[in-house]
């Protein structure tokens, strides 16, 4: 069985974002980058399946972007993927979901993967399209937002998260692509020996320009912070003093609260 996991490197979100000179995406200066959260669940699920099938599946992990994304590929290798593919593209941040999905599909088409895992969305762009578009381009069965996965008798059985805790149960034939929701599993931390082992694993670099030249289907015109409501009170300072002020505000604004 051949498995592909598509992962994205995204910025740590606990920071202040400023527009880049083009004004269409964020400036990367001083940002820290990490593995997209939903993609971490995708890697973990693939590795669990490999373990369940006594190591038989071969897991390729793919990421698109500039040189820095190699670190993210290495993290997935340290979690248990077998080989990495870096689609090198310094312009990846400008590409829309259609262009990214086309790169993935053009890479994967001849490789005959049985199963592809992706996250259901990225934390930075958050369009939630790439996995499904790639599945359509490759003609694969596809289910999105999965929170449970079983593989038995050559079929995938998944639970899709709907709303209010209700789930949809879906069975898919291979080849298939699944997009993973957080909560699908608890991803492992790579151990030090596995981080060392990952350094020796195969890592192939492919130039994005060799995988077709699709134009964008949507265009970002502007990147900006949300309009602030501005009416809120901001409290800052020493804990006991601030707690005192907050208790005062609550007592005034919410009369009849017990415990105040």
């Amino acid at each position, binding site marked *: 069985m051949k498995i592909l996991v598509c992962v994205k490197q995204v910025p740590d*979100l*606990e920071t202040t*974002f400023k527009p880049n000179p083009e004004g269409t995406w*964020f400036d990367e200066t001083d940002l820290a980058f990490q593995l997209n959260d939903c993609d971490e669940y995708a890697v973990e699920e693939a590795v669990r399946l490999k373990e369940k099938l006594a190591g038989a599946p071969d897991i390729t992990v793919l990421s698109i972007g500039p040189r820095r994304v190699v670190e993210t590929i290495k993290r997935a290798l340290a979690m248990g993927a077998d080989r990495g593919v870096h689609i090198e593209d310094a312009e990846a941040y400008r590409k829309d*979901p259609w262009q990214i*999905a086309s790169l993935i599909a053009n890479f994967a088409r001849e490789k005959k993967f049985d199963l592809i895992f992706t996250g*259901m969305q990225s*934390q*930075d762009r*958050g*369009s*939630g*399209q790439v996995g*499904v*578009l790639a599945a*359509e*381009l490759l003609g694969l*069965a*596809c289910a*999105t*937002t999965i929170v449970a996965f079983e593989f038995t008798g050559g079929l995938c059985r998944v*639970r*899709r*998260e*709907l*709303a*209010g805790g*209700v*789930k*949809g*149960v*879906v*069975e*898919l*034939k291979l080849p298939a692509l699944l997009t993973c929701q957080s*909560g699908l599993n*608890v991803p492992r931390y790579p151990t030090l020996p596995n981080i060392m082992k990952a350094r020796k694993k195969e890592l192939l670099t492919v130039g994005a320009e060799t995988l077709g030249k699709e*134009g964008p*289907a*949507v*265009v970002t*015109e502007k990147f*900006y*912070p*949300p309009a*602030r409501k501005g*009416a*809120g009170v*901001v*409290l*800052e300072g020493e804990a*006991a003093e*601030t*707690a005192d002020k*907050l*208790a005062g505000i609550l007592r005034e*604004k*919410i009369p009849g*609260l017990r*415990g105040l």
Partner: protein
Amino acid sequence: MKVLLVGEYREGQLLESCFELEAFADELKAERATLLVGSADACQKLRGKVYFADAADYLEYNPDLHKRLVLEAAARENADHIVFSHSAYGWDLAPRVAAALKAGQVSDIIAVRDGKFEVGCLNGKMRRLVAPATAKAVLTLQPGAFTLKNPGPPEPRIEKLDVEKTASPVNFLGYEPAEKKEVDLTKAAIIVGAGRGIGKQENLAVISALAEALHAEVGASRPVVDAGWLDHSRQVGSTGQVVSPKLYLACGISGATQHLTGMRKSGFIVAINKDKEAPISELADVLVIADLIPFAAALTARLKKP
């Protein structure tokens, strides 16, 4: 401009999101038709031209057949935009339609600005203004972002829609109901919400003590539930419970869109956070910028003082 709205129907019910789609079409001042894979009864609640495909024939979820139905209705209407809710249904189906039409898709739209679409990014911290580069476009709307103001009486003009039924590699087996709830947060007057910012499971004790001092229920954001620190019934958000307490105290919650959807209607919102630019600050009546755990302990102590 013509739009095709793709309504949503689940477990025998028309979903409210259908009216949000209508509101969006009204805002665009577009001529609209709706496709519903549902029941004849459910179509009666809609307005204008309705393409009706029977869920008894096409199931409530069958992405291949639903895609073909959408494409057929869009072709008959020659629709410029095909519009879905950014729900589990739209999430799954919209990109399939976009791929088939080679049309650009704009996901999770929160507003229309000069004919272009505003969407959130970076977990709601920033916005993008996006325009399709293709003649036809697929759009998905953030749940709750558009509200129908003057719906008027339902007056559907229904046209039955059918496509050839072929085998699909995706087989929908049915629904699994939500787990039994440990707590009904919708009835709570005060909720203390715990987020990723609590840092570790042991710190939940500090949050619980604060909740106790306020006679509040403990709620949680998704990462806390996913980590197994609290039961799913305590999850506040579009995939958990949608709550409207008198007071919501968000502790270490950055405010992912799906969480904000679940607590936006709270009477008074206090956010305690290290990051003053976290999206939760947009909704907060009071924003406390502090180290969560020592502050929560100090507030608990203050509340316990006679």
